[in-house]
């Protein structure tokens, strides 16, 4: 029997893959080797952009470390809060369905619109948050203090994306086998020991998956920063993606922005691979 025709059936999938994944990556690499900007075309300048990036652009690296801090902090908080909420509605509690839906609402809203609303909340002279706090003699500079602005970004991100973590972890909890819990109950394990020795280890694989998915998403944080602080005050909330956006679409340094994007992609692939391996080693010891 001749199976050569099977390749014909592969073609549509392959075509889509080349069109939406392979071609853009190749084009970005080509673009990164050019000085394409508002006054130059798609010329060839070799590794000039990469040399500039590695030797003469501390702002990129600062924004990268800021991004690492923001994404790790937000994902850890999302994991802890998401797990707590999932654990809460996993058990038989009153209004279980209501809470399950309620906790998902932030994720269903449009991030940009919600960030505009958060920005209004945190507006230092017109926002309701400081209006309330002023009754207690406080008026924090939510968006204009370099440290507090980072915390504000973290609050908004955690609010928006904890439901995603909650959803994955709740699905994980609902799929756990009942036997280990029965055995723990027969042994008289306390709820804390049950969580530490049964629930958490059993949830490790799904936890790793959820954390990695969220880390990938969090490392692209852009809309929250764009709307909330524009990377400010100064550059204190500027992340890699926002910096690449400034260079590429504001200053129209397309070639240089492409070299940053490609470098960033490589760094993310390597670091997320290591993080996934590390988490697996840590959580799946046995």
């Amino acid at each position, binding site marked *: 029997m001749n199976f050569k025709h099977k390749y014909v059936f592969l073609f549509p999938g392959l075509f889509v893959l080349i069109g939406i994944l392979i071609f853009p990556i190749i084009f970005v690499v080509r673009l990164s080797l050019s*000085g*394409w*900007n*508002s*006054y130059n*075309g798609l010329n060839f300048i070799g590794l000039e952009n990469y040399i500039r990036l590695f030797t*003469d652009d501390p*702002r990129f690296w600062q924004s990268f470390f800021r991004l690492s801090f923001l994404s790790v902090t937000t994902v850890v908080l999302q994991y802890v809060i998401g797990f707590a909420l999932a654990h809460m509605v996993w058990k038989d509690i009153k209004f279980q369905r209501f809470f399950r839906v309620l906790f998902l609402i932030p994720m269903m809203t449009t991030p940009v619109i919600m960030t505009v609303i958060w920005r209004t909340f945190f*507006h*230092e*002279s*017109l*926002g309701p948050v*400081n209006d309330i706090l002023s009754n207690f003699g406080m*008026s924090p*500079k*939510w*968006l*204009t203090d*370099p440290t507090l602005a980072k915390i504000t970004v973290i609050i908004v991100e955690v609010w928006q994306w904890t439901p995603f973590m909650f959803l994955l972890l709740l699905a994980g909890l609902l799929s756990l086998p009942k036997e280990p819990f029965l055995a723990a109950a027969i042994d008289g394990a306390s709820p804390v020991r049950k969580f530490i020795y049964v629930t958490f280890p059993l949830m490790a694989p799904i936890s790793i998956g959820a954390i990695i998915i969220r880390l990938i998403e969090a490392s692209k944080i852009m809309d929250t920063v764009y709307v909330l*602080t*524009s*990377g*400010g*005050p*100064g*550059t*204190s909330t500027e992340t890699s993606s926002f910096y690449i956006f*400034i260079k590429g*679409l*504001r*200053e*129209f*340094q397309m070639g240089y922005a492409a070299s940053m994007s490609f470098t960033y992609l490589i760094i993310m692939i390597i670091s997320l691979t290591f993080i996934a391996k590390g988490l697996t080693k840590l959580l799946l010891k046995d």
Partner: protein
Amino acid sequence: MGEKMKITKTCLSAIISGVLIFSPMAYADKWSDQFPHIKATGDIPGDCSYEEMSKKNYKGKTLKINTHAVPVIGQPTALHAEQFAKLTGAKVDVTHTPAGDLYAKAMVPFKAGQAPYDIVFGFSNFINDWRQYLAPVPKKYMNSTEMKDVTKSHVGVSSWDGTMYQYPVDGDRHYLKYRKDVIDNPEMQKKYKADTGKTLRVPTTWKEYGEMAKYFNGWDWDGDGEKEYGSAEVMKKDDLMFAAFFSRSVAYAKNPRTPGGFFFDLETMKPNINNPGFVEALGDWVEATKYVPPGGINFGLGDEIGSFGGGQTLFSFSWDDAFIAAMQDDSPIKNKVGAAPLPGADKVWNRVSGKWENQYNQAPYIVWGWAVGVAKKSKVQEMAFDYLCFFSNGANHQADLAIGNFGVNPFKNSDFDPQLYINTMGWDADIANSYTKTLNDMEKSKNRVFPLRVRGVFEFTSAVATGTSKALAGQLSPQEALDEVAKEWEAIVNRVGKKNVQEDYAVGVKMEDNKL
């Protein structure tokens, strides 16, 4: 009896003429009946008037426009598109784009050799990057009655080395806005004198501005039960803050005795941005973070308009919009504000001698504003220019000027007639006079600064925004911040090519040195 009749007739004619001149309804004509937007004036004769446009027939043709989001400039674009379509039979498609994306949305297809839009809106400082893709304004429109009314400054802003590429639809400059009910209030003047030993008056220097703003910061000085603050300024990074910084810098760094460049030394192309003049201005600006409303260092242009226009601050400076917003009928401070030139300084840096000159200096900043061009590759160029000419015809322009959030500001000589604001917008005579005098004096000044319009202008302005915002946030000192900007500017000049930037910059310098 006959004599009596004659007198009565004369009186009646005088009354009717008066009503015709001063009553908005009196201008009603067949066009204002159909287009209520121009009800205050009716159609105003001209080459692109309603009457003239109605004679054109563009049935079956489509005009594609990319403009800003509603309302600023987006709303008048859409409104005039609808009117234009009704008059000429054309189909007009209007796309609205956020300000930050206007440049790229036109530039990407331009670079790819395409023209998805016949008309592209942007800012006037895009001119050098866009002009190679734009059609020069044809002679026919250059000689139109409407164009002949455009001020010399704004012909210059819309042109590149004598050729006009951007059709003038808006005129922008930065000037000082202040609360007249406070500054001119004898009780406040007495109180200020008693507390500070100084005279309360319209500030003529930035130091005076700072002292007054600090004094009037954080207490309820207008008795509305709310705290008021010193100044509302555009300080948000990447939200036009670089223009606000240049407004504060011109007094210290634009020396009429040292022609040859405000931003760079044209001969050497060495950036002036970190010289003591600019550093002094940034020092003042850092100080200003103490007298802006809470959250003021995150204020973009919209916040500034809302803050001053809503009566929250004593001072503001930058574009017209905050002033127009304050003078709109629904404003709580209508007829309580005044306009004045940007404050000056008691000293000015001489970059040639490398020393301060201890004498008063003031320099107007003719800042960039909304601009629009017709794509060179457009297949309906004539219709596109007709639309633009119609957009800014006498009747539309006067009606647009009265609406604060339309973003259309004076750029015609006829706009400097105070009667326009008194009769059609209900402004107090002294406010209208101070406003038109402020604008008019800027036109006459020989020490003006024009926006930077060199290749890759965004790289330069973005570097300024980053550096100055670091200083405002306390991450760097003013000198360190501007040294960083200067280093970045030098790197950009090297990337773009010194000769290229020099060639572009020379055009702007010619305007500043009154040679063009």
